[in-house]
């Protein structure tokens, strides 16, 4: 028979030998194995007290960035929603009124911007699609909730705080290489 890989094992129905029939050697061997696990390093951690180290470029909960002057960068172009393979992003665009120049960077903005965190697969394609550097994934993790409604994150949860001290650092995901890569139109996957 032609075997596809060298990992397959042929099944045999051979009669058990005496020691196999007695079970005890196999039982003792099994107990030896489990006993060795007793002292092994545990795979789990005491979660809220100790936390696992996250990569700097971890793809967790999204943030809607503001620019230097605290204005929202998002212009509600909808490219992120189009790029999203899980169709988790919805938005309603609105026109900037006179006097709101300190709130929104451009004439159009998203009055409603929602990401359904239950649908989101944290692939980062929204971030890649965004031409305004407005949406980023951060290394925060999405908190659990008892209700499904609680997982639809609006601007209240996504937008970063106005306070300059509390801004969310995304420089690790915004490296020069990434920016260069984004400029190269030939590498665009959704063109």
């Amino acid at each position, binding site marked *: 028979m032609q075997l596809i890989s060298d990992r397959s094992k042929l099944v045999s129905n051979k009669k058990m030998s005496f020691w196999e029939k007695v079970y005890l050697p196999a039982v003792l061997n099994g107990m030896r194995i489990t006993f060795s696990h007793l002292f092994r390093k545990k795979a*789990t951690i005491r979660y809220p007290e100790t936390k696992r180290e996250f990569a700097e470029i971890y793809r967790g909960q999204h943030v809607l960035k503001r620019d230097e002057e605290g204005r929202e960068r998002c212009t509600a172009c909808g490219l992120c929603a189009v790029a999203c393979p899980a169709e988790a992003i919805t938005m309603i665009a609105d026109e900037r009124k006179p006097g709101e120049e300190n709130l929104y960077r451009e004439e159009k903005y998203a009055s409603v911007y929602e990401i359904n965190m239950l649908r989101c697969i944290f692939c980062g394609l929204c971030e890649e699609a965004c031409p305004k550097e407005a949406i980023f994934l951060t290394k925060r993790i999405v908190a659990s909730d008892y209700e499904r409604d609680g997982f639809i994150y609006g601007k209240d949860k996504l937008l970063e705080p106005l306070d300059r001290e509390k801004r969310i650092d995304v420089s690790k995901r915004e490296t020069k290489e990434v920016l260069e890569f984004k400029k190269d139109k030939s590498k665009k996957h959704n063109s």
Partner: protein
Amino acid sequence: MGIFILYKTILASCILMLSLLVAMYSTLIERKIAGFLQDRLGPDRAGPWGLFQPLADGIKLFFKEEFMPNTADKFLYILGPSLTMLIALLTSAAIPWGSNLVINGKEYPLQVADINIGILYIFAIVSIGVYGIMIGGWASNNKYALLGAVRASSQMISYELAMSLAIIAVVMMTGSLSLKDIVQQQHGFNWNVWYQPAAFLIFLVCAFAECNRSPFDLPECETELVGGYHTEYSSMKLGFYLFAEYINMFISAAVMATLFFGGYNFPFMDKLALSPNTMATIGFFVLFSKITILGFVFMWVRWTLPRFRYDQLMRLGWKALIPLAILNIVITGIVILVK
């Protein structure tokens, strides 16, 4: 006479409390060991190292909804878990927990009842234990419960035979059915397990089956029978069943330690030349550590071996363990005769 009764009452309640406490913390230790063997941490949320977990479990069980199926036989339904619990607690009476205490020149044995048929008493009580499960399974009026109960009773009856036969060899050696005599003959390091390893092995396997523990946990296998005989039980009635299992485990570890590992005896005990009271205290702790080790073996085996199939279980019981036990009796008999 009054002091005697008072002493026995105090001793009995102490042992009762001890059994309950040990059973309570066995649940936590079991889960901890399960965690460690599977490279997990185990429960550690309730209190430091999860020490309050048994309390939390107990409170949870008390506050759960008391559910009784419409078609259940009310009297038997309540009798089942009560009987199981009662019988689990009865066995500890015959076990010698230490050598004699001496207070004001009078000897007080650390044993509730030194009956001359100790082993027989324990086996009699353990055999009644199957009624608790059988009644519970029958009264639930549920096919899973009934199947679990039928399995439990046939399993327990089959393994009781091999268990008793294994003990007969020990009794032949000792020449007494009293547990106190059996322990005293194992003075020092002269333990029965050195003379009767086969009997010990058979007894151990049967003890697993008697306590309905893995790999012989067929009566309550979650995967096939949705919990087996206690499918329809909830709240503290379920708690009683689960609790009784741990008490049974504790008691069978104690019986094993008494019969095969010298009970409260330990090596070089004569050379210490201590007062009888200190001796009794040390003896108690020695017995308790033996029980702990055996209890660990129970848990260790549970988290190592997969469940037996029912026909394999019956084949092992009737075709392997019983003939082996009989052979063991014959060989013991010949050796005693030759000596």
